[in-house]
């Protein structure tokens, strides 16, 4: 099911840009920090097929979050190319990247990043407002997303009134509400206890299986990644050090 990716070389069995959900081609992201050049992502070439469940693993500073940000269109590569459903994000304008984030990508953060003064319902509705979805349609879309994460009873609650797990589920509902094709999650279980983290991972698996959504998660929890992901990409110093199915 999953494709392999190789570091610094042509990936084996690489899907074409038309069929891959995400494909990177010699992707580079360097930062200048004072006089030091930080090679956060360094010549990464990989391809992810639709409906795959990929875990990006690595130690802190390995470049996994930077790679995820590049996939999300939140950051731009220094060189190379990154395609989402065949469209090169590196060549997109700022507005086009915003549309990409709005329509193609759903994103979940470690810190949940729910807006504290909004209720759960309003937080989940926010991407619909940004995507200019008609008001008449919003209500049903919000309920559908909230039901999927089993939070229907908490619609009117503010984030501060929700547990960590509930907040992450709310963030997941917010990421799903625009019906994206790719779901990116940056350490989604990092702020949660083990049991709650498993709940979130189960939800992600369910979404992957029922909706056929491509999921890429960044995590440093290898055992959990092995349990849930179809493919594990290890990163170190901005490069892919290994790529393959969990053992």
């Amino acid at each position, binding site marked *: 099911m999953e494709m392999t990716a190789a570091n610094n070389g042509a990936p084996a069995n690489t899907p074409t840009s038309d069929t891959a959900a995400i494909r990177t081609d010699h992707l580079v992201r360097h930062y200048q920090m004072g006089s030091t050049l930080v090679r956060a992502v360094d010549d990464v070439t990989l391809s992810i097929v639709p409906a795959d469940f990929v875990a990006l693993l690595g130690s802190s500073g390995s470049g996994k979050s930077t790679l995820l940000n590049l996939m999300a269109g939140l*950051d731009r590569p220094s060189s190379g190319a990154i395609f989402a459903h065949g469209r090169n994000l590196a060549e997109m304008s700022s507005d086009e990247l915003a549309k990409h*984030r709005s329509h193609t990508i759903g994103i979940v953060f470690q810190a949940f990043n729910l807006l504290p003064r909004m209720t759960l319902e309003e937080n989940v509705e926010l991407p619909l407002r940004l995507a200019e979805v008609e008001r008449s349609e919003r209500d049903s879309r919000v309920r559908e997303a909230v039901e999927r994460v089993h939070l229907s009873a908490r619609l009117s609650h503010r984030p501060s009134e929700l547990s960590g797990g509930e907040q992450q589920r709310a963030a997941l509902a917010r990421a799903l509400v625009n019906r994206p094709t790719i779901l990116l999650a940056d350490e989604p279980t990092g702020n949660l206890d083990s049991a709650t983290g498993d709940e979130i991972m189960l939800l992600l698996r369910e979404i992957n299986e029922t909706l056929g959504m491509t999921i890429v998660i960044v995590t440093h929890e290898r055992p959990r990644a092995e349990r849930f992901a179809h493919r594990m990409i290890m990163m170190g110093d901005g490069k892919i050090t290994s790529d393959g199915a969990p053992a």
Partner: protein
Amino acid sequence: MKTRDLMDLAARNLREALLRNFLTTLGIGVGVASLVAMLSLGVGLQNLANDRLAKSGLFDAVIVTPLTNFGGFERPQQPSPGPPPVARPLDEDARHQIEALPNVVEVYPEIRFPTEIRFAGNPYPTIVAGVPPSAREGGSFDDMKGSFFSSPSANEAILQIELARQLSSQPDALLGQEIVLRYAEREPLPADSGGGNPGTGGFSIVPREEKLRIVGIVETEPAAGVGSFGRGRLLIPLQVAETLRAAQTNDLRDLLRDTPAKRTYDNLTVRVKGAPQVKAVEDAVKQMGFGAFSLLDATRNLALVFTVFDLLLGIFGSLALIVASLGIINTLVMAILERRREIGVLKALGAADRDVRRLFFAEAAAMGLLGGLLGVTIGWLIGRAINFGTDVYLTRRQLPSIAVAAVPWWMVAAAIAFSVAVSLAAGIYPASRAARLNPVEALRYE
């Protein structure tokens, strides 16, 4: 993002830091209030001047003279494409013809003649002037003692204070008393007694007397209309003055004309509905073959002076608003710092730079709008307070009340629009800065 959603989010953000945003809005309000208060004074004073000048009859009047007159009041005649107008006598026919012109309110002659009045057995030489009923609205009689003429045909007189002081050491005691007016009446002669030219007629000068009751004493010298009854010391209703048929200076000229029995006027004052119609009436009168003169040019100069005055007041008033705009910049820049992460989240969820920019502009505009409304209200209240204070001051000095400050609707709309515009201008830098925020860095911000 749709405008409604944008406004909703902006309102939510403004409510979030309520005290700070309220204080910023209050700052704008004070700025707008200062602007409105300044301008309301300028406009109020302009209205007052315009009103007084309009009432004075200087700016809605056209003075008509026969072309045969010597030069004087008339402006240089513009060369007209048609044949030059034929000079005509300014007589009763001409008066009716001018009265029939559109936008003409009234046409009255200048009747002023030297005379002698008798009071308490003593003679006093003076000059009598006829006053049209419309002069009552002119403001010149606002502060008079006694009252205006009870009717246009009443045998009543208003004395100018200098004359009243001549008649009595206690001028106020003259009210209600009678004086005798001695004057020379122009009496037409039969047609065959014109002195050699059969059929032309003529007139004789006969001394007459008329009793008048003193109804008022006026401090100033009323000057309703250019060259009109100003300079008269004894004012009587114009209609009464006309029926007296008192001999005037132009009577000698009438005597030399072919029809001396037919009376002509030295000049006629034409009152027009308003200043905008003066030019058309002036042109029509000239076309009829008369000289015409108005003070329109003076009105234009006055308007220019007040425009400059308003501009200066507006500049001073705007200073406070400009200071307030720094408050908006400060508030929004602070908001960017506080909401850095939120901006990152919005961008991650699909907000374009444009959406973030519009959101900050909407917040700036909302503060500008609320500040504008608040400022206009405060400015209006300041204007009312100024008017109240002025009223109290004038009343204590037994002077009629006037409105010194005025806040017309256009000023309300302009002040609010200006407030929003200044707020939007103040929002340019913060909005651009927020829109340019790198979402990755913003999301990392704690």
